[in-house]
């Protein structure tokens, strides 16, 4: 599955990967805030932000092209609205929407690709996200690929039996509903099994991290630099 790739990228090693997840999360939020408050009048406002992101990508030693392509998943939505703006005579505004939404998506992808999921969730919890969400997200992310694989296999099996060309569309509709119900039953069974296994291993409401994260002076320095850079970017595009 394609989503495995983000998990793979997040386990690489680089100066950016080594920073504390809390510092990276806050820096990303600051970056998004500065970009969102920048003027909406022209696409040029997004250029300095994009340059900073490209530099960060370079430091993170992540593959450039796959990341640029992945964050293009925001483009269908943006292009439709940019075209509407352009057709109604607000071309520059449409261009700004397109550029800014793409740069925002790239910034969030950079966070996800340089931070393993457990550390990111731990950072969110220490920044005030309720425990319930963290627990749900942990098991959701862990079993997403398992259940998606089951769904993939079922889809393949139905294709092998001619599932795409039913004689009547309603029969195909009911067949899909039936396979979703079976998928649900299997997920339910698996959820029950996982729950029992976790309880028998002494689970009492929180998953421990393998390495206790520490907020080092270098992380504080990184965060301070991100604050300064965010303010500088914002001022550079608003004062022009």
């Amino acid at each position, binding site marked *: 599955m394609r989503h495995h790739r983000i998990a793979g990228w997040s386990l690489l090693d680089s100066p950016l990967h080594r920073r504390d997840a809390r510092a990276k999360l806050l820096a990303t939020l600051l970056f998004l805030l500065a970009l969102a408050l920048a003027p909406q009048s022209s696409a040029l406002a997004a250029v300095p932000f994009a340059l900073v992101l490209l530099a960060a990508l370079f430091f993170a030693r992540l593959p450039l092209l796959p990341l640029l392509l992945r964050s293009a998943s925001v483009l269908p939505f943006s292009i439709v609205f940019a075209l509407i703006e352009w057709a109604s005579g607000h071309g520059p505004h449409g261009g700004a929407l397109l550029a800014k939404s793409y740069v925002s998506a790239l910034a969030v992808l950079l966070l996800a690709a340089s931070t393993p999921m457990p550390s990111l969730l731990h950072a969110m919890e220490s920044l005030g996200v309720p425990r319930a969400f963290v627990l749900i997200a942990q098991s959701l992310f862990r*079993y997403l690929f398992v259940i998606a694989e089951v769904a993939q296999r079922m889809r393949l099996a139905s294709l092998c039996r001619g599932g795409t060309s039913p004689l009547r569309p309603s029969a195909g509709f009911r067949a899909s509903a039936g396979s979703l119900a079976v998928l649900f*039953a299997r997920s339910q069974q698996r*959820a029950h099994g996982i729950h029992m296994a976790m309880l028998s291993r002494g689970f009492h409401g929180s998953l421990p991290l393998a390495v206790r994260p520490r907020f080092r002076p270098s992380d504080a320095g990184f965060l301070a630099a991100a604050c300064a850079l965010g303010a500088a970017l914002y001022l550079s595009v608003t004062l022009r």
Partner: protein
Amino acid sequence: MHIPDNFLSPPVWLALDAISLPLVGWVARRSFRDSDHTATPRLGVMGAFVFAAQMINFPVGAGTSAHLLGGALLVSILGPTATVLVMTTIVAMQAFVFQDGGVLALGANVFNMALAGVVAAALALRAFRRFPSAALFLAGAVSVLASAFLALAELLASGVHMPPALLWASIGLFAVSAVVEGAITLAVVRAVSRLNSRWLSLPSQAGRGPLAAFSLAALLMAVAAFFVASSQPDGLQTLAARFHISSQPILPAPLAGYSMSLAGPPWLGRASAALAGLLLAAAACLALGRFLARRRSA
């Protein structure tokens, strides 16, 4: 329906972040105050199921296919409270990991899909619980309609331009996807109940159906009002001009011209006026309801 970052104007996303994130946090803390979190991972697996379920295509005729969105299905399996938690986690996961929807716009997306959509589905299930098939179909349909109309209204309130023809086209698209979601929800819940009906947690016979129907109607009207207020901010004035009513107000209105006289660009005033007007109307309705309920019980 996932709104990316930078499409909403700062007042709109800030207001929706400030409303919906504390609200879902409160739901999470309240529902897990007494328990010790050991059952929570099962909710995560259900969330993974909804994610994976979107890979199974449903033929809807004319060579096209659709997939489940899942809000109403989760309500009929987990009940509304747990569904709010699971849907919020799904929306946040889509924003942070899959770049589907913005991070600053998370409050807006959570409000549309994890709060309004789920509440609409739960109310529909409760209001029509005597007719289970109709209730399931309606639950799927109204959850999609509520989310989609709110998303569109937020975009319009943010000053995104949209010609009327396109507006009608997207409303038609919403209607089609609402019907499809209703049909898929009904078909899947029927298939699940054939496997094991104990997996479902539909509202039981005892309950307050009329109240739920009334609340559902109120919710849908609020969504529609927000939509109309943000797409045609001068609708009343047009009406007044058409019927030659004097444009001089009898009473000085606090939200005159549907825009607050704040310093700043015009869309800011319009968006905050729309939000403030809605909040005022909701507060007035709530106060009236309280008053009537007290008088009836006294």
